[in-house]
Each structure stands twice: as C-alpha cells, then as structure tokens.
C-alpha cells in the first residue's frame, strides 16, 4: 500500500473532558487511488486526514507514506515533507486576498522544484480568463478552483481534500469534484477526500466509513463512476 495507517489513536481533552476521536484506525490506500472518508460530524474523519497530512499528531499508531513514517518526523521534517509530497484543499479557500488567481497558484508552485506548467493548470481549472482577478472578484467555485490549483501545481503525491465542496452549491460542487477527478487521472495523484456527502463515495476507488472514531466499512468500490455522473 502507498499509504498505510496502523492502530491510530487520538483523543482530545483531559480527565472528565477526555474525548477519544480515533480508536485504533488501521487502513491503507493504493497509489493513484481516490479514497473517500465518509462519516457524520464528530466521526474523526477530519482528524484522520490531518494526521495523514502531518498537521496533527496521533497519540499512538503509525502513518506511513511510501515507506516514510510521518509520526517520527520533527516539526521541520514534517514541513519539508508536506512541502514535497502533499497538497491540501479545505472547505474554506484561504486564498491570499491581495494576490491574483495566478499568483495564488504560484504560491503553491514556489514550494516545488518541478512545478506543473502554470498556464496548463489555469486552463485545466478554467481559470485562464480570471487569472488576473483577486479573490474577492471571484465566485465561491472559482475560489475553490484556485485553491485546488494552488494545491496541485506542485504535483503532490497525495492531495488531501477536507470537505472541498462543503461551502458550494450542487453544480459548483460537481464541477469541483470533476476537477479533482481530472487531476487524479492526469497527474496520478493519490486523492483523499473527507466528506459527509454520501454520494461522493461513488467516484472513489476506495471508501472508508467512520463512526465514533472507528472504521465501520472499508470497501473497494468496484462500480466507480465519473464525478459528472454522481448525484444527490
């Protein structure tokens, strides 16, 4: 497996306020797969994603990506690791307000020694015409596309998406999902999507359902369909 998770535990708070968020998660994702982490609020899916991304630490257990164990890395090593291998997309776009679309994507390109061609990305994302606009001149969908552009331009091995369509309407959500699918196909990135939208599981190679910090289902989706075909 490209991504291996073994016996992951995570809790927050102390004493009476202790909440166990992850209770022994063990799973894996193959390289180039789209994996959807499904579950209701509080199920631990975002925490799991954040531990995979190295921005949260587990109490115990290991996360290994392509043979590198993330848990054992120092703060600096983690930064470098994220820089080289990971791309992040969040529900809130978090773009830099006084940079243009093009420049916001360049913020991601700066982190890579061999970034993907910028113009190519702008075209792929349908942002070419908007490349010189600043974020507050864009719609939510366009802003999220810019955030995806920023994440993928460094050609990350793994693209981590935390509720990427959470703030978008139906049509825009489908556009974004299509885009993520295209990125996966074109650049071969492994994609992990955290969502509570059950329909999104249909475009995934692998679906992991979480509830109360435990894996309830871990299935390989044999009937994967295109993002354009999914509906909810």
């Amino acid at each position, binding site marked *: 497996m490209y991504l291996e998770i073994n016996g992951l535990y995570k809790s927050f708070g102390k004493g009476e306020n202790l909440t166990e968020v992850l209770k022994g998660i063990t799973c894996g994702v193959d390289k180039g797969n789209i994996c959807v982490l499904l579950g209701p609020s509080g199920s631990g899916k975002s925490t799991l994603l954040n531990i995979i991304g190295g*921005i949260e630490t587990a109490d115990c257990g290991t996360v290994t990506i392509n043979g590198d164990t993330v848990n054992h890395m120092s703060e600096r090593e983690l930064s470098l690791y994220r820089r080289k291998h990971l791309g992040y997309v969040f529900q809130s776009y978090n773009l830099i307000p006084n940079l243009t679309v093009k420049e916001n994507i360049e913020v991601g390109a700066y*982190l890579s020694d061999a970034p993907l061609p910028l113009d190519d990305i702008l075209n792929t994302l349908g942002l070419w015409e908007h490349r010189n606009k600043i974020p507050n001149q864009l719609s939510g969908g366009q802003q999220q596309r810019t955030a995806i552009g920023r994440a993928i331009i460094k050609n990350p091995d793994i693209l981590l998406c935390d509720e990427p369509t959470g703030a978008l309407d139906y049509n825009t959500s489908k556009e974004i999902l299509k885009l993520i699918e295209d990125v996966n196909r074109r650049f071969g990135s492994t994609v992990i999507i955290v969502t509570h939208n059950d329909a999104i599981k249909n475009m995934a190679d692998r679906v992991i359902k979480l509830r109360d910090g435990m894996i309830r289902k871990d299935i390989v989706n044999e009937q994967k369909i295109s993002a354009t075909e999914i509906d909810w």
Partner: protein
Amino acid sequence: MRNPLNKTYKREIRQDLGKYIALFLFLTLTIGFISGFLVAGGSMKTAYDESFEKYAVEDGHFTLAIQANDELTEKIEAEQVKVYPLYNKSFNLDNGDTVRIYKERKSVDRICLMDGKMPEKNGQIVIDRLYAENNGIEINDKMSIDGKSFEICGVVAFSDYSALFKNTTDMMFDANKFTVACVTDDDFDSLSDKKIKYTYAWRIDDRTLSEKEQIDKADKIKNILSETGLITDYIKTADNPAIQFTGDDIGKDSVMMTAMLYIIMAVLAFIFGVSTRNTIEKESGTIGTLRASGYTRAELWRHYMFMPILVTVIAAIVGNVMGYTFMKHVVVMMYYHSYSLPTYVTLWNMRAFILTTVIPGLIVWAVVFVVLFVSLKLSPLQFLRHELKPKKKNKVIKLKHFNFITRYRIRIIFQNLPAYFTLFAGVLFASVLLMFGMMMSPLLTNFRTEVLDSKIADYQYVLKAPVEVEYAGAEKYAVCALQTDTGEEITVYGIDSDSTYMKDKAVGIGSVLVTYGLSEKYGIESGDTLELFEKYEEKSYNLKVTGKYNYPAALAVFMSRDTFNRVFEKADGYFTGYFSDKKLTDIDEMYIATVITQSDLTVIADQLDDSMGLLFLLMCGFSVIMYIILIYLLAKQIIEKNINAISMIKILGYSDKEVASLYSKSTGVVMVISLIFCLPLCHAVIKLIYYAVMKKFNGWLTFYIAPWIYPVMFLTGFICYVAVYFLQMKKIRKIPMGEALKNVE
C-alpha cells in the same frame, strides 16, 4: 523562483496606504529630527571642543582690584603657566544693555570672525553675533559707547563667551542685553577707565596635563592670589559657565533626544506589533493552509517581518538624509540662536547613524520578532481553526448592570486590550511632551510675575565702597556671596530690621530666612542648619534657619544687618549698597559695582523664553502629531479587526452612525479615560524630571503648571480623537454588508 508572497507587499502598501503613510511620516520625522539634532550637535560639539585649542581658550582667569605687578605675574608663571592680561571695560548702552569691551586677543581666548572684518582702525568695533541678531543690529550700524560712536565692522564669537554670561555667578546667560565687543588698542585706551577690570587669563604650558593636575595648578594659583588680598574674581575654566555651559548643554540635549527617540520607537514598535498580530489573526486561515502546504515557519516569519522592517529602514534612510540636510539646519539655527558658537563643519556621525538607524531598526525587529515568535508557534491546524489564543476557562465578565450599547463597547475594549494599552502608553508619552512644551512659557511668565511682585526694590545698588546718599527713601543693606558645598552661589543679605522694602516678613535680630527656592532645592526647613562657605577661602558659616521668605529671583539668605555684621565680623553700620524706589543720581559711577533693576531679575526667564521658545513650540506640534497618528493607527486596527462584525450588524440594520458609535466611540472612551489618567501622571512625571534638571542648574525656577494647561491638554487630545473619528466614519461607511456573508466559514 522568487517567493510569490513577496508580491503581496506592493498591494498591501496600496491597500493600507493610510497606515503606512502615517507610520512612515512619524518615523521619518522622528528619526530626521533626532538625526539632525545629533548630527548638528555632534558637529557643533566637535567645533566647540576643537575651539579650546584652535582659539587657545584660557585655563582660567582672575580679576584684581589693581593691575598685577611683575612680581605677582612671575610668581604665577613659575607654576608653568602663561599669564595674559584681558583688561575689559563694561558700559551701559543707551537702551540699558551692557557691552564689555576688550582689545583684540592674539594669544589667548582668540576671537572667531563670523561675518565682516575685525577692527582695523579706530572707530570700528566687532560685537557678538548672537547679541547682534537678537537686537537686529547689522554690520555698518553705529553704536554709541561712553559718548563715542563706533561703526560695527563685524560680528564675532568670543571663544571664552560661547554662552553670554555677564557674571560667572549668574543663573543664566543673557544674549539679549549683554554683549562682548572688541576694538582697536587705541580705542580701548581712549574709553573711560572708571569701569576697567584688571582681568588676567592663564594658560598652562603643558597641554597634556590631566584634569586633576590642571585643577591642582589652578588651586596653587588661587593660593598665590589669595595672599595678595587683591583678588575680586577667580574662576578656572572647568567652572566657568560662559565657557562650559554650551558644551554641557549640547551633550545633555543629545541624551534627552536619544531617550525621546527610543520611547517613540518603543511606542511605534508596539503599534507594529499590534498591527502584525491583527494581520496574523485576520490571515489565520491562509497561514494554516500555507503551513499545511509546506511553507516553513521561517518563511512566514520573514514574510510578516518584511513590511515593518522595510518601513523602518526606508524611514531611517530618508530620516537620515533629512537629518543631514533640512533638519540639521533647523537644529543649527536653534543652537546658533542660543549660543555664540564658532563656525562648524558638518561631520559624519557614526554614533548618530547607529542611534537613529540601527537601534530603532533593532527595537522594531525585536518587538515584531517576539510577536511573530509567539504567534507563529502555533500548529497549522490551530491557524486553520482560528485558535490563536489558548482556550481560557475564565468566566465571561458579567456586565448585566449596563445597557446593551455600553456592554457592547466594553466588550470591544476588552477584546482590544493590547491595542488600547499601546494607546494609553502613547497618549501618556505624547501628553508628557505636550505638557512640557506648553508649561514652560507660562512657567517663565509666572516666574517673571513672582520675581517682580516680590522684588525688594526697583533699584538695588551694589557699591565698591560705602558712600552716603541724600535721598531719604534709600535704605542701606549689606550683601555677600557665599557658596554651598557643591559650589553653588548663595547670596546673603543683611537688611535693616525695620526695613520698609522687605515685604511680608520682618527680619529680626538672630532670625535667618531662606528663600523658598533654596529651601526646595536643598530641602532646608526651619530649624535646620545651613552651612555656607567663603568662595576663595576655607572658611565656613553655620546658619540656623528660622523661616522662609518668598524671593524667587535668587537663592538667598536674609538676616538682619546687625546679625550679618556680627556673623561676618564687620563693623557696626557696615553696608554694601542701597535699596531704592528711584534712581539714585548722587553716587559717583566709580563707586557703583552694579545696579540690579527689574530686567536683571527676569533675565533668566527672558533668555530661556528666547532660546528655547522654538523647541517648546516644536514639542507641542510633535505631541499633537503623535496623538493623531496613534489614535488613527490603533482605531483603524480595531475597526479592521472587526470588519466581519461591523458588516454583520450593518446587515442587521444598524446605521453607519450607530456602528461608529459602537466601535469608534469605544476608542473615544479609552482616549478620554487615558487623557484623564494621564493628567496627574504627567504632572508627577514632569515634576520629577523638572526637579532633577533644576538641581543641576545654578539657581531655581519655581515649579508651576498653569491651571489652564490641563483642560487645554484634554481638549487637544479630544479634538485629535474627533478628527480621527471622522476619518473612521468614512472607513466604516465603506465596509460592505457582503463582507460578513463572504467570510462565513
């Protein structure tokens, strides 16, 4: 690839132009002014220090009652010093001013020609440049002295009169009513000898002697002179204010100015700190994403450090350029308006560069560094979740007794405590400056009034020898000058017990009254014993103080004439002068040592007003600018921090005016509270500084802050706030309602 985050800087400046212009201007003006002050001061101080050798400034001088004979001169010169006669004659001009005339000096205390030429023929005179300026006298003007007309052929700076002290015991120099002058030898001899003073300067042959060795030599000379019984005046250069005051003052100014720079820089650094913290809070999500994407802490640290450092560095460069050009001229003008300094050359001042460029940069760097170090320590996830502050378990402060609007405002104040703390510190500092700038003129006016109200007589005649007068209203008195253990001159008066001139309090036999100034300066109270020393002898007197007397014109002791004569072992009926309510015309001028009139009593106030007036004005202006910039910057940040909330309450239906009443008026409330608290604090701080400074000066100026200054200060601060309030209204109006909806996460 260049870091794309760098592209934000230009746009950030454009978007926040007001803030950056305000900070830049404030920094540039402060650095420019201080740099100008240090550069001009440094160059002036160097010129002043070099003048000691360049113009062969004396190591001391003495005055004898008669000309020194060869034997005395030889005895003194046996101490490896050279003695030079510096005879001088003082005359009153038609307008009452005093001119002290010398022959041209070739070997000691040489004169620096500032403009025109030195006297080449009889009838020509050069006078002090500063006196000429103060009195609108120009080259080629005429001057009548001792019935003889002189043409002013040049203006000069005497190397031994860089501060125009008429007497070395005076509290303050007087460049308005006193000047030194130089004429040809023939003209000098032709002037009346009635006013001649046989003054001699000495200069040590070995210029490498240590300060202590020089003092030892001066003491030996004093001993030789004391034996003659002819000495009427003696002072070594180290104690001569006419020579030393300027150097001490230039040095003192630079210390004060540097301290002021650092206080301002600390306030500005905190503004940068608060501003940076607000930016981080605002951009928390973006920072989290960047950190999650692999941006290192150091990269973000550099990014957020860049603007404050850039603004400081550019301001320091521009400020330094201003310091060496425009500002230097302003300061030079101020120095030349106070002192009779020789010509100077602008010198590169490494110390000024470090003090005004490197250290301010370091202060800003250190404060922003700490803010960033603390802020950026958080994990990417904390930034993404906007968890920038530790979750406190503190209870929410209950404000149930207040109405909604007041509660809202109080919450805003609590939310922005660091910004408001910076505002308070800045307001306090600006208020101290403002109070100092505003208080000095009324203080001097009050001093003048007090001096005139409490003057003993319209005319105080000091005689060289006792002579009788016909006018029955004239009253005899005795006076002598002693000194404290620190060397400060104290005038001791012996007054008739039934004096008609001494107001309020009669001086009975055995009673010793000290002036309030003397009491305040040395902490002397009734019942204490005051020890005073003879100036040129090792003799001291212990005076038991019985009360205080209001006589602000001098540090003085009053006793009855009988007591005076007994204490100083004088014959009964001994006196040295007259108090009179009108001019006495029947005393031959040769017997008059000096006449003290009203203008002599107020000379210190007049001179301080004249030479420091511009500085007081500059301080007031600077404080007002500081008020406005501080309030503007901090109020702006508070609004920016709350853009979402403002947008949201606008959606709810609040009008712009109501929004301003919530947000800008919170700043107003803090401003008003700060101003109210600052007034007594300022009073205490100023009083502390004032007493410390006055203790270093000769004499005493009564501490006084005119009561109207407090409301005017409050109003000034409040008007500055109102001006900023209207600017903020404009900003609030511009906040779109959509902002809140866009930023909901």
